[in-house]
C-alpha cells in the first residue's frame, strides 16, 4: 500500500557504553563507503542503542552483524520540517491531536531542509495524519 512507501528502515544496534564502540561502527561504515544521514544514541544504565539512517541500509546491517554487533531494523518515518521557529511544534501538535505517541525522535538540518525522524506507536495512522496536515514525508530511496 501507499503508506508503506513512507516507512524508512533505521538500523538499530545494541551497544554497551564502552570506549570504541561508536568508532568501530563508524569505521565499518567508512570501509564500506556507507554514508550516515542521521543518527542518535539512546542510553540506559551501562548500555544503549545506536540508531542510524544510512544510504545503504542492507550493507550497513550485514557489515555490523558480521562484526558481531547485535543489529535490528526499526521502521521510522521522516517528516520534512519547516526550518524556522514553530517547525517542530506543528508536527508534534498534529500527532498529539491524533493521540499518537512519539516513542522517540531525532532530527537533522541539511542544506535544503530540516528532517524530523519519528518512531511512533501507530505508524500508519501517523503517516495518514501527517500527510493530511499537508506535511511531506521522505521516502527511503530519497536517502540514496
Amino acid at each position, binding site marked *: 500500500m501507499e503508506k508503506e512507501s513512507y516507512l524508512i528502515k533505521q538500523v*538499530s544496534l545494541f551497544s*554497551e557504553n564502552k570506549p570504541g564502540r561508536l568508532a568501530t561502527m563508524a569505521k565499518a561504515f567508512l570501509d564500506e563507503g556507507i554514508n550516515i544521514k542521521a543518527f542518535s544514541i539512546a542510553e*540506559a*544504565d551501562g548500555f544503549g*542503542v545506536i*540508531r542510524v539512517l544510512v544510504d545503504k541500509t542492507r550493507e550497513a546491517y550485514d557489515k555490523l552483524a558480521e562484526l558481531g554487533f*547485535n543489529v535490528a531494523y*526499526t521502521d521510522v518515518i521522516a517528516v520534512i520540517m519547516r526550518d524556522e521557529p514553530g517547525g517542530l511544534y506543528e508536527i508534534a501538535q498534529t500527532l498529539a491531536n491524533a493521540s499518537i505517541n512519539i516513542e522517540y525522535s531525532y532530527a537533522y538540518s541539511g542544506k535544503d531542509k530540516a528532517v524530523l525522524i519519528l518512531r511512533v506507536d501507530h505508524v500508519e495512522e501517523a503517516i495518514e495524519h501527517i500527510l493530511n496536515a499537508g506535511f511531506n514525508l521522505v521516502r527511503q530511496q530519497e536517502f540514496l
Partner: protein
Amino acid sequence: MRYWDKAIETIQPEELEKLQVKRLQETIKRACHVPFYQHRLQEAGISADDITKTSDIKNLPFTKKQDLREGYPFGFFAVPLKEIVRIHTTSGTTGKPTVVGYTKGDLDNWSDLIARNLTMIGLSDDDIFQNMVNYGMFTGGLGFHYGAEKAGLTTIPSATGNTKRQIEMIHDFCVTAIHCTPSYALHLAEVAEELQIPLDSLKTGIFGAEPWSDQMRTELEEKLRVTAFDSYGMSELYGPGVAFECPEHNGLHIWHDSFLVEIIDPATGEPLGPNERGELVITPLTKEAMPLLRYRTGDITMLLDDVCPCGRGRKIARFTGRSDDMLVIRGINVFPSQIEHVLLSIPEVAGSYMVYVDRVNHMDEMIIEVEINRQFFSGELADLKTIRERIQRALRDVLELRTNVRLVEPGSLPRFEGKAKRVIDRREKM
C-alpha cells in the same frame, strides 16, 4: 542394565555396613602413619579398635582442606615415597597447592571406580571416548583416561585447547562420548555450529569439575544432542569418579564401599538426616597413600531417601554449590548456582554471565553482567530495559537481594575452557 562389578554395586545394607566398618578400621590404622592423625586421634582418645559400627565415625576428628595445605608437600602421605607412583596437585586460590599421592593400589581402585561409572551409563568397548580435560596436574585427565581404557573404551586423550581440532576429531573419528566441563561443552557446541560441522556420532556427554544446573542440562542436551551425565569427584578423594549419575538422572550414586558418607551442618558440624541439605563429609575407605578421616569437601548436597530402580546404593543430590563458593552479600547467603538457575530460565539471556561483588560505601553491591540472546534484540531501548528489569526482578525473588544487572553485547563475555570462574569478589578482605 550392565554392571562393572555387580556384587559390590548392589551390595545389601547389612553386608555394606560390615564392609565399611572393616575398611574404616583399616583406614584409621593407615592414618596412624601420618603425624597429624596420630595427634588428632590421641587427643580424641580413639583408635581403630573402638570402631564397631559406622556411626562411631562421629567420634573421629574432621579434616579440612587447610590441614592438607599445612602438610605441604608430603605431610599426609601414610606410606614411604617409594610406594607412591603418582602425584597430582590441586591449585588453591591462595598459597601452596594441595598435594595428593597414589600407590599402585590407589590407581587401580580409582580406575576401577571410573570403569564402574562408565559402564553404569551404558558405555563399553563399542564406544569412542574423547577426554577433553586437562591432562596435567588436574586429576580429571589421567583419572578418566585410565578408567576409560580399563572399561575398554577407545580413548582419545585430546586434552584441552584447539576447539576446532577437537570438533574435527569428534566428527572424523565418530566419537560417541565426551568428557569436559559443561561450560566448555557449550563453547564446543557454538563453535561446531559456526563451523557447520555436525557432531551426529555423539550420544553421551559427561560433565563435571563445576556444578551445572538442570537448565544447563537441557541446553547441553539440545545443542550437542547427547544424554548428559553429572560426574563428581575431587583430587583429595582420588579425583573424578566418587559419585556419578545413573541413567535415571535422579541424583548421583556415590560408591559406599569406597567412601563413607556423612552430611553435616557446615556451621555446627552436627550430622543431618536424609533429605536434609548440608556439607558432604567423606571418609575414603580404600585409599592407601593418603588416607583421610572425615574430609570436609565444602560441597553442599543431601543423601536421598529413595531406592534407585537401577539396583545400586543410596544416592546424593546433584550439587547446588560449594559452601566456600557461597557469597555473603549484605548478610544474605548466595550460591552462584542460584544465579545461574535464574538466568538460564530466562529465554532472553544467552549462556554466559559474570558476577562481580564490590563494596561501595560499606555496602555490598552485586553486579551481574548478562549477555542477551541475539534474537531477542528488537532494536528498542525500551525493550532492553524491560528485559533488564525482568532479570533483576527474577533474581530478587530468588536471592532476596537487589542486584545490578548490566546487559552486555552477545559474545562479549569470557568463555571458559577449564573451570568456569564467573564470580569475582572484589571486596577487600576484612
